[in-house]
């Protein structure tokens, strides 16, 4: 049982790496492909060759002891068969696509398929752990375990020894050991410069701040008006609101700011200029 649990631990780590590499498929296709090919090969040559037959033997023993789970266990066995077929297909398609195709829509479709495969494998593991691992510990007799152990070929998951992994799957092992992983990186077709992005964020912050203050102010004023209970209270509230709202976001609202005065003057001058020029022309004639 412990060996099956360890297999799931190793598989989980490889699934996490597959998830990392699929995200890089469009950006670094060749590099990601070489790791994914090794990861799928590992799944075919360990999980589908040793781990699943081991589980299937266990399923058969449980079914003999407890018919309640018959249908669930049959489903899980079918999933093993389908999983093996799907792993092989994914590995073949990955190898067949050119670098250019991997960057394009076909690569995206393949990435979606691998993502679905990872999700399904996780769910399959969850179901196995939830449904039958505990049941196996409860219903199986010592002679069942003896028979299962006797039929086992004793193959160990190479994931239990990273040196062994490095010898068989060098690129996968190298990536498993990387201390920092980048996720969600994409090739940006029209990159926005960092400076422009920062300016946009600063603008959002500025207008967000103004909106925030406006809402706070409005809320405070509404609260004050709702609290009015008499005509004198209304006069007091209006007075308070007027005096409290003379400034907004650090700007005095009763006196126009310098830019507004200068801008306004410039507009007036621009509007009057044709008339002034016309009157000057008339005068000179």
């Amino acid at each position, binding site marked *: 049982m412990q060996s099956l649990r360890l297999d799931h631990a*190793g598989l989980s780590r490889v699934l996490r790496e597959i998830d990392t590499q699929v995200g890089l498929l469009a950006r670094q296709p060749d590099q990601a492909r070489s790791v994914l090919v090794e990861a799928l090969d590992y799944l075919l040559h360990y999980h589908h060759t040793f781990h699943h037959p081991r589980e299937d033997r266990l399923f058969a023993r449980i079914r003999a002891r407890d018919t309640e789970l018959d249908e669930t266990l049959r489903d899980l066995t079918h999933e093993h068969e389908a999983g093996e077929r799907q792993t092989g297909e994914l590995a073949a398609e990955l190898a067949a696509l050119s670098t250019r195709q991997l960057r394009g829509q076909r690569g995206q479709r393949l990435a979606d398929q691998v993502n679905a495969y990872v999700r399904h494998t996780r769910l399959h593991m969850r179901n196995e752990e939830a449904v039958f691992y505990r049941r196996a510990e409860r219903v199986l007799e010592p002679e069942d375990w003896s028979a299962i152990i006797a039929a086992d070929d004793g193959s160990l998951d190479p994931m239990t020894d990273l040196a062994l992994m490095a010898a068989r799957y060098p690129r996968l092992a190298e990536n498993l050991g990387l201390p920092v992983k980048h*996720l969600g990186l994409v090739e940006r077709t029209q990159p926005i410069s960092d400076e422009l992005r*920062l300016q946009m964020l600063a603008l959002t912050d500025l207008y967000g701040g103004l909106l925030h203050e406006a809402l706070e102010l409005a809320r405070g004023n509404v609260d004050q008006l709702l609290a009015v209970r008499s005509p004198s209270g209304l006069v007091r509230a209006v007075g308070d609101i007027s005096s409290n709202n003379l400034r907004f976001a650090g700007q005095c609202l009763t006196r126009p700011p310098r830019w507004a005065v200068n801008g306004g003057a410039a507009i007036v001058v621009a509007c009057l200029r044709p008339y002034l020029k016309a009157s000057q022309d008339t005068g000179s004639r």
Partner: protein
Amino acid sequence: MVSWQTRTVELLSRLTIRQSLRRDISVTAMRERIQAMERFFPDVPGDVTIEFEPGLSHCDAEWLTPQSGPTERMVLHFPGGAFMTRFVRAERLLLARICRAANARGRLVFYRLAPEHPYPAGLEDCLEAYRQLLSGGIAPEHIVISGMSAGGCLALSVLMAARDEGMPMPAGAVLMSPAADMSDESEGGSRVVNAARDAVLSLERGDDIRKLYLDDKTELANHPYVSPVLGDFSGLPPLLFQVGSTEVLLDDSRRCAERARSAGVRAEVEVWDRMPHGWQALSFAPESGRAIGRLADFVRESCP
């Protein structure tokens, strides 16, 4: 590619939480706002049951159990909230999702908050929760500690304090954007470079938070249980950090992981491109599902 759901939340956070953090508002007002925002988070799924007993001495805590056959695994989770507030519903849902994905039970600790209960009250509550699990017969190799933001800082502090007290180490720890440095020396790197990029956090009032958490004893900021990044990582279990590339707290994760590795601890950092602080809790965003799947993989790896 950042999903539209995450982009929307990013914009809303920039207009709300970040604006609140930049202004001099009271802790009470901040808690009220967070409570109002929490209405948008869905309830825990019906197949996860919540129990309250046995509790802890000084704070609330919950047991979460997914009905679909949990294993012996236990995730002990400390929520975030700048040591002063908390997103109760969001953190409960986050832990429920991790537990479901990892076939684990969950222990959610609502440790005491500053400024009413400054350091070390919160840390004591978290340590008590870990002790309770051990004394309740849960083997340390079946426990994974997890923490978000300030809770990530407490998760690292609990590991160090437990090691210093001679307690057995859990199987691993997952740290989601931990705020692992409360000292002054760290006011550079991502805290400066990402100051405008971070959609959620603003450290403009970082000094105030530090003073409230430490009850004005700012000399404590260099203590390893307050700033775990300055602590000794030797003897700690495997660590997994998840952090967004535009977060002000990006360097906290990187520096912790570097120190852990140099102390011989397996530490991995996942840097998620342009993800906002706490995206794992956004149950409606696809990136959150992917992050939870990876966290669950790590839990399964750590507790076979």
